[in-house]
């Protein structure tokens, strides 16, 4: 029960921030895909950088655990390509589509119904996918620092530098 309360409160704050940053809208999502407006990339990458530093800090202090997903090149690459096609057509992300509905963009409702259909279809095909695509290039639960054999703070520092360079580029180009 406490889990559900945490979920709701965290979701409300997240939805509030998403809406305030104006990153939920179709025009912003398509703007990024068309390389016209990088607002959502700025928002998302800042979130990733701050969370990366914070989570690893807490992990080093022994306060939290990482949640590492299995890397399956087949699943990640094919799934990513398919997701990209659907995302560009829909114009909202799975999570933010609920936020779009919350600010009155009710075309998102059609896509939400579509997503339920897509999830149902995947559930039907899961046994087949498990035997095929998901076995292709299955590398298990790996992380970049582990693969590179270096301390995670080196990877984090490199990501922060890359992120800042990207932000500097966006601002210079007025994206």
């Amino acid at each position, binding site marked *: 029960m406490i889990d559900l309360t945490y979920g709701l*409160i965290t979701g409300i704050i997240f939805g509030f921030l998403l809406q305030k940053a*104006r990153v939920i809208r179709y025009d912003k999502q398509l703007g990024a895909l068309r390389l016209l407006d990088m607002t959502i990339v700025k928002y998302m990458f800042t979130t990733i950088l701050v969370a990366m530093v914070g989570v690893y800090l807490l992990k080093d202090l022994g306060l939290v655990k990482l949640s590492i997903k299995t890397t399956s090149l087949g699943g990640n690459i094919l799934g990513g390509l398919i997701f990209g096609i659907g995302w560009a057509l829909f114009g909202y992300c799975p999570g933010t589509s609920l936020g779009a509905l919350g600010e009155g963009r*009710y075309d998102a409702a059609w896509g939400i119904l579509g997503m339920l259909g897509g999830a149902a279809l995947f559930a039907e095909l899961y046994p087949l996918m498990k035997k095929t695509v998901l076995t292709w290039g299955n590398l298990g639960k790996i992380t970049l620092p582990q693969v590179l054999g270096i301390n995670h703070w080196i990877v984090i520092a490199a990501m922060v530098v890359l992120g800042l360079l990207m932000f500097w580029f966006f601002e210079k180009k007025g994206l």
Partner: protein
Amino acid sequence: MNDRHEPKGWNPYIAGALTGLLLVLSVWAAGKYFGASTTFVRSAGFVESAFSAERVARMEYFIKELPKIDWQWMFVVGIFFGSLIASSTSRSFRWQAVPTMWEQRFGPGRLKRGIVAFFGGAVAMFGARLADG
């Protein structure tokens, strides 16, 4: 066309940093990372259960992701309310059936937009589940 009276949004770097802190707090306090797409699997399982509960109970993917209301399900519902609160308290809520950029390119037809949004949503969710993210 944006409402000319709509206030400008927050700086995306500041909002992004606050979201990063929210994620860190969530991992620390509840042990939960952010995600959304599993919720659509659980919800699809709910809907299908209404028609054929026995079949759902036998399906491998619904055994892996049980049709139940969990942290993430409430998180996704929360996103709706958070956005509703933020937009309705700042004059940026707007009923809109067809997005501006879509209308400029494909016209104001609601049916066309609805069909593409439905199909796109289905494709996106299939891909997201295949990539497990």
